[in-house]
């Protein structure tokens, strides 16, 4: 009856959120593109330099080091997270008290802050004061304490990976458990009647029927790892020699302590482009899972 009016009433309700997004997401995005074409700092007057910042990024060895390190970190941690997360889901999927409790415990670190967990692990891995060196020596695994952070980029990366696996493995587990619960029980029962062993059922039924969730969680995890910052800022501070400075870390360094805002914007734009590819893939996948 008053359909036309109600359309605009509906728009009215959406307006505040829309205005917020326009001011605090769309405008900064446009601003970022504009800034990326300038030599822009808070102190000196800005100067149009076209694609100068992008050319500079191309020739900046630190950009390549950071990108390479971020990709390497992502490539190593993603399969670890997926496999451990899935095994934990298989272990705890059944709704029995001990398993449910274990599931809650595995998920618990997900709710605490990345900053707090990184500080916690920075202490655990500390050379003199850390319990990990102490425990490894007591167990006879190593003879002398290991310098986890600051000396060797690979050693530092593995220490960070250990902390992040502890912190986020439960994220995948919870989503995998939900996917496993969505499998019709008749399938498993029929396979059991047929005498399929547990691992055969996992391979033939559980894995194929949760494949979409596995893909989605993998993509979310990849995006998260490509945007890694807190854990490296706190645990390695980019050391040694900025070899463990991730892409976001490098953008942060250029934009804020160095105040090269134009260059930082160009680097941000490049990173946003890389993330965009992953996100579009993720959205295509989740849209298909709705249909």
């Amino acid at each position, binding site marked *: 009856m008053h359909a036309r009016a109600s359309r605009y009433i*509906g728009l009215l309700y959406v307006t505040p959120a829309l205005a917020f997004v326009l001011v605090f*997401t769309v405008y900064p995005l446009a601003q970022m593109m504009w800034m990326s074409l300038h030599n822009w700092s808070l102190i000196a007057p800005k100067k149009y330099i076209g694609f100068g910042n992008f050319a500079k990024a191309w020739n900046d060895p630190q950009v390549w080091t950071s990108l390479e390190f971020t990709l390497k970190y992502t490539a190593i941690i993603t399969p670890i997270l997926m496999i451990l997360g899935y095994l934990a889901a298989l272990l705890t999927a059944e709704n029995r008290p001990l398993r449910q409790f274990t599931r809650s415990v595995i998920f618990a670190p997900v709710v605490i802050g990345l900053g707090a967990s990184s500080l916690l692990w920075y202490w655990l891995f500390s050379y003199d004061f850390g319990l990990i060196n102490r425990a490894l020596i007591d167990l006879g695994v190593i003879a002398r304490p290991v310098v986890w952070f600051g000396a060797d980029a690979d050693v530092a990366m593995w220490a960070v990976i250990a902390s992040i696996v502890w912190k986020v493995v439960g994220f995948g587990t919870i*989503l995998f458990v939900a996917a496993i619960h969505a499998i019709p029980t008749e399938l498993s029962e029929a396979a059991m009647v047929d005498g399929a062993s547990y691992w055969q059922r996992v391979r033939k039924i559980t894995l194929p029927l949760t494949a979409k969730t596995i893909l989605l969680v993998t993509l979310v995890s990849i995006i998260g790892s490509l945007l890694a910052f807190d854990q490296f800022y706190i645990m390695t501070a980019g050391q040694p020699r900025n070899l463990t400075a991730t892409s976001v870390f490098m953008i942060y360094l250029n934009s804020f302590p160095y105040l090269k805002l134009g260059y930082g914007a160009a680097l941000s734009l490049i990173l946003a482009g890389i993330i965009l590819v992953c996100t579009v893939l993720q959205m295509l996948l989740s849209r298909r899972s709705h249909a």
Partner: protein
Amino acid sequence: MSAFPHVAGTGIERARAQRSAAAGLMEGLIRGRRKYLVAAICVAVCTVMLLPLLASVLASLKSTEEAAAVPPTYFPHALSLDSYKRLWDYQAGLPTYFSNSLGAALLTIIFCLALTVPAGYGLAKFRVPAKEALFVVLLLGLIVPYQALLTPLFFLFVQLKLHNSLVGLAIVHTAIQLPFSIYVMRNAFEAVPRELEEAATMDGCNSFQVLVHICLPAVVPAMITVSLFAFITSWNELLAALVIMNKDSSFTLPLILAAARQQTSIGGTDWGMLQAGIVISIIPCMAFYLLLQKYYMAGFLSGAVK
């Protein structure tokens, strides 16, 4: 077997299945043992996951000397609140940092609810023009990571005098949470039965009255989910706080802890105090997780990956 032809289709697999059927008897015998194996793995996994948290709590309760001992002790010899006392007085003092974090988190919750409750209602219940395009713009934050937007946001906030302010920080945290919150709220409003609203409209309620009296009570769980995630995000967020807050007295909890790790690392890190800070910042997250687990899981399963 015909019930799942794609599962055990080939003859080889059929034979394998029969063989393992014969082994089924054996399996029955070892099933008892497997039960203990699963239980043992569960206990081991729980231990590994809980040990770091336990170690942190214990370390925060060590005396000043013991917290700086090399090699470190596993268990405190005597319990002491020294670390918490030092944290209380550190720089501008724990109360300042705690209330900064709490203030930013509460503002984020308020902003998120104020923006996404009406937006969810509008999107779910009205034929808004260009709805698809609108939805994409509203979910833009999913496509452009906020980490990439901090450079222009910082510049914008300097112009608006919003840097070093809790409102500014809460705005960024709201921008991070907005897509998820809109998604959750829209789904919640869509689940409210249309008959209820129609009856209310017949009785002469306008759309705002329908929202307040009919829809809001039904979407309270979704509002709790939105608030919970807004709190957790804001309480824990580090990078935006690092960029926007550069005055010591405006630091949030994660910020002052990260700073304490660096400032004190020259003259020897105050490990006990850091652990106390970690425990303090973990407590609210854990408490909310335990109290509101249902809402937490609802949020995770509905919107975490979509």
